[in-house]
């Protein structure tokens, strides 16, 4: 199985993945990244009340794929 690397972008910066994980194909890697984003979004919303998260999936062959989640809490004045 090919190895995919998941670089996480969050409020603290970019965290480059040096370890990677094995998946059958890029579609499976994207599913994993979505699950991770859901986990991480939940956690950062609890801590910060807002989130700005992304995962860039890299591997040797295919073009990288970027997934991003932005969520904000705004009080709308009338």
């Amino acid at each position, binding site marked *: 199985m090919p190895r995919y690397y*998941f670089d*996480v972008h969050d409020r603290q910066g970019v*965290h480059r*993945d040096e*370890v990677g*994980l094995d998946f059958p194909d890029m579609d499976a890697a994207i599913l*994993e*990244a979505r*699950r*991770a984003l859901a*986990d*991480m979004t939940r*956690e950062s919303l*609890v*801590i910060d009340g807002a989130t700005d998260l992304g*995962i860039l999936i890299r591997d040797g062959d295919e073009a990288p794929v970027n997934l991003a989640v932005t969520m904000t809490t705004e009080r709308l004045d009338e």
Partner: protein
Amino acid sequence: MADETILATFFRKLEVRDVVTAAEKVALIACASDMVSVPAGGDLVREGDRPDTSMLVLDGFSSRYRDAPDGSRQITAIHVPGDFVDLHSLLLREMDHSVGALSACSVMRFPHARLRSLTETHPHLTRLLWLMTLIDASIHREWLSAAARTAPEQIAHLICELYVRLGITGLIAPDQSFTLPLTQTALGEALGLSAVHVNRSLQQLRSEDLFTWQNQTVRILDWESLKRRASFDDRYLHLVREPR
């Protein structure tokens, strides 16, 4: 067939919680039948099985798990060397979960018929075996409480727990390190987190210099800070030696 030294890690776990007499040790050893080896990735017992022996892991790490229909796995417990992992099947009869080897395991088998006789002749030893399954349940409760913790806190908590459990049986090296044959995927399956989130959280913890984790070896760098980071309290491991 077994001598006392071969069950020493298990007796050590009991002796942390109570006094075990020489006669009780002899009685339990007499219940052992034979040893089997299970390779890493193999199963000691599978969901749905109706075993006629219970297994005590002499050496190696194992996990209690269930596989969901979608192929995902939930690890519900991690067992360290010396754990009597499958005392459950003596009374449950049909396994509602599996026990798999995280690393190569040497396992001592105890026929249920012998264990059943033991419970009729050795009430105190029976209570100690009962206590071991209660502590397994206590650890499950602690893991269930993890929902309130962030991912780095959950990982830190598991490291604290394993450090204490391995320390009981002298499996912590003088440099405060221990073997942990757990992949990031398995760690995610144990904590209910995606492997990517585990990876990111480990990076976060690494930058805090609380412990290192390389090549299946964890080394504790700052125990007091790690305990604080994890809000770890060992009460649920019941480490008090008193009459049971």
